[in-house]
C-alpha cells in the first residue's frame, strides 16, 4: 500500500500554470517560505491520525505473536551468558543476574571438539561448496534455459527427482563412493557431496531466472560476433547477479546448517563441523544448558547475521525457489 494520497494531483493545476505564466515550475523567487497548510481543521486530522480500536487490537496481537515466536531464542541467548545455577532457576528471572562469558570460553575450547576449530571446519566446507555450486549451476542453467539439446527432459526430470529425495537416500551410495576413492572423512569428500546435492535446485532456480532474460540481448551480441562463452560471461552472468546472490545466501545457510551429511561423512573429532558438536555438549546427567546455549549461539550467528543483512535476497530466493 502506498502512503500517498491519491487525491493530491501530481501535476500543477490549470490555475497554477496560469499564475506562473504557463511554466511548469514556480520561479525561484515565488516559492513561499512555508509549505501550504492542509485544508483540514485539527479535529479531522486527529480523528484521521488516531487508529481505530480494531487496528490497535490488530497491532497488539501481531506484536504479541511475533514476540512469542522469538521467546525460545531470547531464552537461549540469555542462558548463554549466565551460570548454570541461574539457568536452572529459570532464565526469565532477571533479579540478581550474573553476566558471564564463561560459557563461551568453555564452548570455544570444548575438550571433545573445540567450537573454534569446529566453526573453522564449517567455514572450510561451506565456502567452496557455495562458490562451486554457483559457478557450475549457472553454467548448467544457461543451456537449460536457452538451448534445446537431447536428453534435456530426462535431465530435468532427474533434477526434480533429486529435489524431492531426502538426504538420507543418497547417504548410503555416497558413503561407499567416498570410501572407494579415499575421500571419506575429509573436507573434500563432504564438499563434493554438498555440491552434488545442491546443484539440482540451483540449476532449476537459475534456469527459471534466465528464462526471463530477453533473447534480443543475446541475439544482438551474436550479430556482433560474440561466442557462446562470451555471451555467458558478459551478458548472462552479470544480468543474473540478483539470482546468484539469492543462491549464495540460501546455499550458504543450507550447507552451514546441514547436520545429517557431516554426521555421516565426518568421523574424526578434529574434523567435526559446528552443528555436529552441539548435541555432544548435552552432557550425561545434568544438561549443560549454558555450554550448549553458547555453542548454539556461535553456530547460528553466521546464518542469522547473513539473513539479517541480505534479508531481501533471502526471502525473494526462498519464494522463487519453491513457487516457480
Amino acid at each position, binding site marked *: 500500500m502506498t502512503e500517498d494520497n491519491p487525491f493530491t494531483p501530481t501535476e500543477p493545476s490549470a490555475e497554477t500554470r496560469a499564475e506562473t505564466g504557463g511554466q511548469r515550475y514556480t520561479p525561484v523567487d515565488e516559492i513561499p517560505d512555508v509549505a501550504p497548510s492542509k485544508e483540514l481543521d485539527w479535529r479531522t486530522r486527529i480523528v484521521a491520525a488516531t487508529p481505530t480500536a480494531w487496528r490497535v487490537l490488530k497491532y497488539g496481537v501481531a506484536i504479541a505473536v511475533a*514476540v512469542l515466536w522469538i521467546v525460545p531464542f531470547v*531464552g537461549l541467548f540469555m542462558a548463554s551468558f549466565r551460570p548454570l545455577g541461574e539457568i536452572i532457576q529459570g532464565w526469565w528471572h532477571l533479579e540478581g543476574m550474573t553476566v558471564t562469558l564463561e560459557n563461551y570460553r568453555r564452548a570455544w575450547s570444548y575438550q571433545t571438539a573445540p567450537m573454534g576449530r569446529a566453526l573453522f571446519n564449517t567455514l572450510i566446507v561451506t565456502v567452496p561448496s557455495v562458490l562451486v555450486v554457483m559457478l557450475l549451476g549457472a*553454467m548448467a542453467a544457461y543451456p537449460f534455459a536457452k538451448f534445446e539439446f537431447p536428453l534435456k527432459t530426462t535431465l530435468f526430470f532427474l533434477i526434480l527427482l533429486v529435489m524431492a529425495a531426502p538426504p*538420507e537416500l543418497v547417504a548410503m551410495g555416497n558413503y*561407499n563412493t567416498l570410501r572407494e576413492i579415499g575421500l571419506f572423512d575429509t573436507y573434500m569428500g563432504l564438499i563434493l557431496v554438498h555440491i552434488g*546435492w545442491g546443484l*539440482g535446485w540451483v540449476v532449476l532456480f537459475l534456469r527459471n531466472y534466465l528464462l526471463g532474460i530477453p533473447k534480443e540481448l543475446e541475439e544482438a551480441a551474436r550479430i556482433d560476433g560474440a561466442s557462446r562463452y562470451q555471451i555467458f560471461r558478459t551478458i548472462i552472468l552479470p544480468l543474473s547477479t540478483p539470482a546468484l546472490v539469492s543462491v549464495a545466501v540460501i546455499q550458504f545457510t543450507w550447507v552451514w546448517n546441514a547436520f545429517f551429511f557431516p554426521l555421516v561423512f565426518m568421523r574424526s573429532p578434529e574434523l567435526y563441523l559446528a552443528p555436529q558438536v552441539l548435541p555432544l555438549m*548435552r552432557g550425561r546427567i545434568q544438561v549443560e544448558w549454558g555450554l550448549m546455549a553458547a555453542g548454539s549461539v556461535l553456530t*547460528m550467528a553466521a546464518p542469522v547475521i547473513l539473513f539479517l543483512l541480505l534479508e531481501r535476497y533471502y526471502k525473494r530466493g526462498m519464494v522463487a525457489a519453491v513457487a516457480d
Partner: protein
Amino acid sequence: MSLRDHIDGLEGGHDSTGDPAFDREKAIALAVFLVPGMTLFGIFSVGPIVYSAVGSFFSWDAFTMQSFVGLDNWFRTFRDPLIVHWENIRQYRFPMGALTQNLLWVVLHVPISTLLGLGMALLFADLRGRRILRSMVFLGFTVPTIVIGLVLLFVYDPQAGVFNELLRVVGQGQLVRNWTQSPQVAIYALVAGGIWVQTGFNMLLYSSALSAIDPSLIESAKVDGAGPYRRFRDIIWPLVKPVTAVVVIMGIIWVMRVFDIVYAAGGTAGGPNHSYSVLGIEVYRAAFEPPIDYGKAMVVALVQLLIVAPLAAYIARMN
C-alpha cells in the same frame, strides 16, 4: 527446437565444412557448460539414488552387495515393528513405528502450520513495521535445525524450561514434566516445535502472494460493501489458493525429511523406546550403527521418496 536454434544450426553449417545438420561448435559449447555440473550431480545425487533403488533388492554384508533377493528387504522392513507397529497402533500407544509416527507428524504439522502461516500473513499484511514482524517469525527457519531441537529440549525442560513455567503460572502445575522424554506425549511436543519453525516459511510464501494482489480489487470490494469475510472468501482466497498447494507440499516434504530435531531430542534411538522415531532416524540407525542393515536402510529411504515424489511431480506439472 526453436526457429532461432534452427537458424543457428544453418549458420554453423555454413562455417564448418562438416555435416550441416550437426552444429559442432554448439555441441562443444553445450558440453562445456553442462558436463562439469552434471557429472558431479550424477555421481553424488542421481547415482546414489539409483544405487539405493537397485540395492534394496539385494542382500547386504555390511557395506557390500551380495545376491539378488527380490522383495525380501521390502517385506522384512514393513513387518519390522520399528517401522510399523500394528499392535500399538490398535491401542493408540507409542511407539507405533517410525512410518506411522512420521505420517502422524504430517497429519498434525501440515494443516496447523499452513493455517497459522496464512493467518499471520493476513494479520501482518497492512501493518507498519511488518518487515520486522515477519523477520521475527521467520528467524527460526534460518537457524540450524539441530539448534531448533536443542532449543526445544530447553523449552520443555521441567526445571529450566519456559513452557513448564508457563504451565505453573496458569495453574496447571500437575502437567509439568519433561515433555521431550515422556513417551506418550513427546511426539506432540516435537510437532509443536516443527510448527513453530515452519509457520515462518509458510507466512513468507503467503505474504508474497498477498502482496501480489492488486489493492484496488480490495478497495472496490469495500466500496461495494463486502465485509472482511466476504473479501477473504471471494477475492483473497481464490488468489492465494495456488500458493496453498505449494505450502502444503513443501510442508509434507519438510516433515518427511525431519531428522535433526528428533536426533537432538532423542538421539539415534528416536526417544525413549523409539517412541518418536521417524523414517530418517531409522535410515541412519540401519545404515551407520551396528548391526548394519543396508538393505533396510535403502528401503526406508525409498519409502520416504515414494511418499513425496508424486507431490513433487504435481508441483512440477502445475508450472
